């Protein structure tokens, strides 16, 4: 298929099936890292990294290539946009809900983080730093479950 046969909406739909490698219930659209899709003679997908050193960035780029190739698009350009820098505000409402169901408390400007298991606000931070740069370790003082919190950035 040549790129001009596909629409932007179609490409977006395909991208909606590309998972974030670290939180696979989220698609890269949920995460808000797809900044632009331009369909001309080639398909240009502009992505933005979450953190400078995020090891998922390269995996995501190759997943996007693979997903589009699988749908017959061959002329693909992946661009990286640094500006404006990514913020957790770009995670969609749907993405936040998926994250919570997956067991990760979504980012919140509030100091009170709700337990993703029992929704209690009676929670405490165990460590500001967690298994990845974007998460902190928390624990619920009601249901006693440890959980991860996706930090605001």
């Amino acid at each position, binding site marked *: 298929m040549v790129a001009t046969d596909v629409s932007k909406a179609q490409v977006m739909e395909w991208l909606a099936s590309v998972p974030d490698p670290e939180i696979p219930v989220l698609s890269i659209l949920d995460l808000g890292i797809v900044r632009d899709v331009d369909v001309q003679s080639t398909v240009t997908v502009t992505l933005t990294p979450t953190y400078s050193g995020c090891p998922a960035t390269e995996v995501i780029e190759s997943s996007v290539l693979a997903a589009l190739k699988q749908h017959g698009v061959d002329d693909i350009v992946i661009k990286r946009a*640094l500006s*404006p820098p990514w913020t957790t505000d770009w995670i969609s409402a749907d993405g936040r809900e998926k994250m919570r169901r997956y067991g990760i408390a979504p980012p919140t400007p509030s100091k009170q983080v709700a337990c993703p298991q029992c929704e209690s606000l009676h929670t405490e931070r*165990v460590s500001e*730093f967690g298994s990845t740069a974007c998460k902190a370790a928390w624990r619920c003082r009601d249901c006693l479950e440890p959980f991860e919190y996706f930090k605001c950035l």
Partner: protein
Amino acid sequence: MNSEQALNRYTLRLADNALILAQRMLELVAAGPELEEELANANFALDYIGQARMFYSYAAEREGQGRTEDDFAFMRDEHEFGNLLLLEQPNGHFGDALVRQFLFEIFYRHLLDALTQCADQRLREIAARAIKEVDYHCRHSSQWMIRLGDGTGFSHARVQASLDDAWRFTGEMFVADDVDKLMQDGFDGPDLAAIHALWRRDVGKVVAEATLDLPADEWMADGGKQGRHSEHFGFLLAEMQYLQRSFPGATW
């Protein structure tokens, strides 16, 4: 040297600072004093690796001779690196490593802030991305300075000694050489005298809250930016570059 060449050199210095600090931090992986610090250190080192990659990639594009980020990191010799002497100093104990982070991060935070206003678009973008990370690095190292300085008599004495010991490496950050001047004049780059004042203010505030004494400005070491490094640097590169030195061009 014209201002375009100065920008290349300047970008490499930024990359070298981030890479060499990351390498020192990575030496501490699995040696953290507690789990939270272990994770913080590894996360921060990864931030610096990411920043180094963005700066090296830009330097490689600007140079346009086919070199890659890896060539800059692994195939250059000591005199070609322009990182600050402070960052290559050995880790020592936890207080030594902390003081090094603290003194550099407060400086780097203001430097990045100035770079978000410079005339070079790519540096502006990288700085805007990196500053969000360095913000929480500063918060973290400042908290630890206060915790140790205003902690026990033992922790206070140890971290004061670390601060006194590291101080002679801070002067270099604020001495503008030709590269800094061309960057400032040609690209609205950082004004190091202005940053020095901001750095003194912020460092002084934390040091006072930590009940520590700000060391006096006496003799200052310099030369790192120009490629004249301390005796520790060759050993650092020998370890970091081992694979590419032994198996040139190896990939996986």
